C-alpha cells in the first residue's frame, strides 16, 4: 500500500525528477515511521491510517509544484542576468579583438553603422535594467504556500519582465550580428575572423539559453496551474 502511494506521489511530481526522488525518500521515511508508531504494528490498517493522515498525493504534489516553480522562476531570473553579463563579455571581447587586430572601419555605410550602434546600445542597456528589475522583483517576493491568484499575478508580471529582457537582448544581439557582418564584409575567411564569429555565436547561444529558461518556466507554470486546479 505504501509503495503504491509513494509511486503515485512520485508520478505527480515527475515534472521535477530530483524533487520527485527527494520527496519520495522523505515521505517513505515518514510513512514507515508512522506505521512503526501505530499501536497495531505493521498492518494494512496501520499503513492505511498513515497514508490517510498524510493526505491526498495530488494535493501534496500541488503544493510541492508551487515550491518547485518558485525555485525555477528564481533560477530564470539569475540566468537572465548571467546571460546579459556573458553577452557583454562576448561583445567587449570582440571589440578588443578588432582593436588588437587593428581592423578599421570603412567610411561607406557609416550612417547605417551609427544607427545600428545606437539601437544596440539602447537595447542592451534596456535588457540590463529590465533583467535586474526582474531579478529584484522575484527575489523580493515570498514563496507562497499555494498557487494563489496573487502569485499568478506575480508570475505574469515576472514573465512579462523576462520576455521584455529577452526581446531587448535579441534586438541587441541582432544589431551586433549586423555590425559584425558589416565589419567582416569583404574579408577572406581566416583565423582572425573566426574570433569575431565565435563571440557572435556565444551571444546567440546566450540568448538561446535565456529563451529556453523562459519557455521552461512558462510550461512549469502551466503544469502547476493544472495540478492546482484538480
Amino acid at each position: 500500500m505504501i509503495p503504491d502511494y509513494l509511486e503515485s506521489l512520485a508520478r505527480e511530481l515527475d515534472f521535477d525528477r530530483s524533487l520527485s526522488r527527494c520527496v519520495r525518500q522523505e515521505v517513505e521515511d515518514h510513512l514507515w515511521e508512522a506505521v512503526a508508531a501505530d499501536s497495531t504494528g505493521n498492518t494494512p490498517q496501520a499503513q492505511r491510517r498513515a497514508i490517510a493522515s498524510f493526505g491526498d498525493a495530488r494535493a501534496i504534489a500541488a503544493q510541492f509544484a508551487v515550491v518547485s516553480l518558485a525555485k525555477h522562476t528564481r533560477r530564470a531570473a539569475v540566468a537572465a542576468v548571467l546571460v546579459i553579463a556573458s553577452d557583454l563579455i562576448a561583445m567587449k571581447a570582440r571589440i578588443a579583438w578588432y582593436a588588437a587586430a587593428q581592423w578599421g572601419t570603412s567610411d561607406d555605410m557609416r550612417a547605417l553603422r551609427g544607427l545600428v550602434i545606437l539601437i544596440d546600445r539602447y537595447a542592451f542597456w534596456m535588457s540590463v535594467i529590465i533583467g535586474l528589475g526582474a531579478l529584484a522583483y522575484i527575489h523580493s517576493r515570498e514563496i507562497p504556500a499555494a498557487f494563489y491568484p496573487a502569485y499568478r499575478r506575480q508570475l505574469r508580471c515576472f514573465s512579462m519582465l523576462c520576455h521584455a529582457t529577452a526581446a531587448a537582448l535579441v534586438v541587441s544581439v541582432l544589431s551586433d550580428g549586423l555590425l559584425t557582418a558589416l565589419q567582416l564584409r569583404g574579408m577572406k575567411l581566416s583565423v582572425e575572423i573566426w574570433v569575431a564569429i565565435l563571440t557572435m555565436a556565444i551571444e546567440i547561444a546566450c540568448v538561446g539559453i535565456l529563451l529556453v529558461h523562459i519557455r521552461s518556466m512558462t510550461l512549469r507554470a502551466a503544469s502547476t496551474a493544472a495540478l492546482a486546479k484538480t
Partner: protein
Amino acid sequence: MLKGHLDMIVLAALAAAGSAHGYAVIEEIKRRSGGAFDLPEGTIYPALHRLEQAGLLKSTWTTADSGRRRRVYSLTRTGTRALVERRAVWKQFSDAIGGLLGGNRPRETPA
C-alpha cells in the same frame, strides 16, 4: 487560519526540537499544541521545502537506524531571526485580540 501561520508553527517546532526530520517536526507540533492542529501531515513537507528555499532552514541527509535515508532540518540564523519577529507580531496580535475579547487592555507597546 492555521495555514496562514504554518510557517511560524514549523519554525517554532524546529526551534524547540533543535534539528529534526519531518515526522519529528509533526510530532513536536502535535505535542506542543496538545493535538489542537489537525492538518494533513503531508502539508508540512512542502512548507519545510519552501522555508529551506527561503533560507530560513537548512537540511542534511542522514541514515536512520532503520537504514532509510532521512532528511533532517534545522533553523538557520535568518530562520531564528524570522521566528523572533513573527513571535513578536503574533504576541502583539494575540494581546490585541485578547484585549478585545476579554475586555483587558493590551499593554502599550513602546513606539
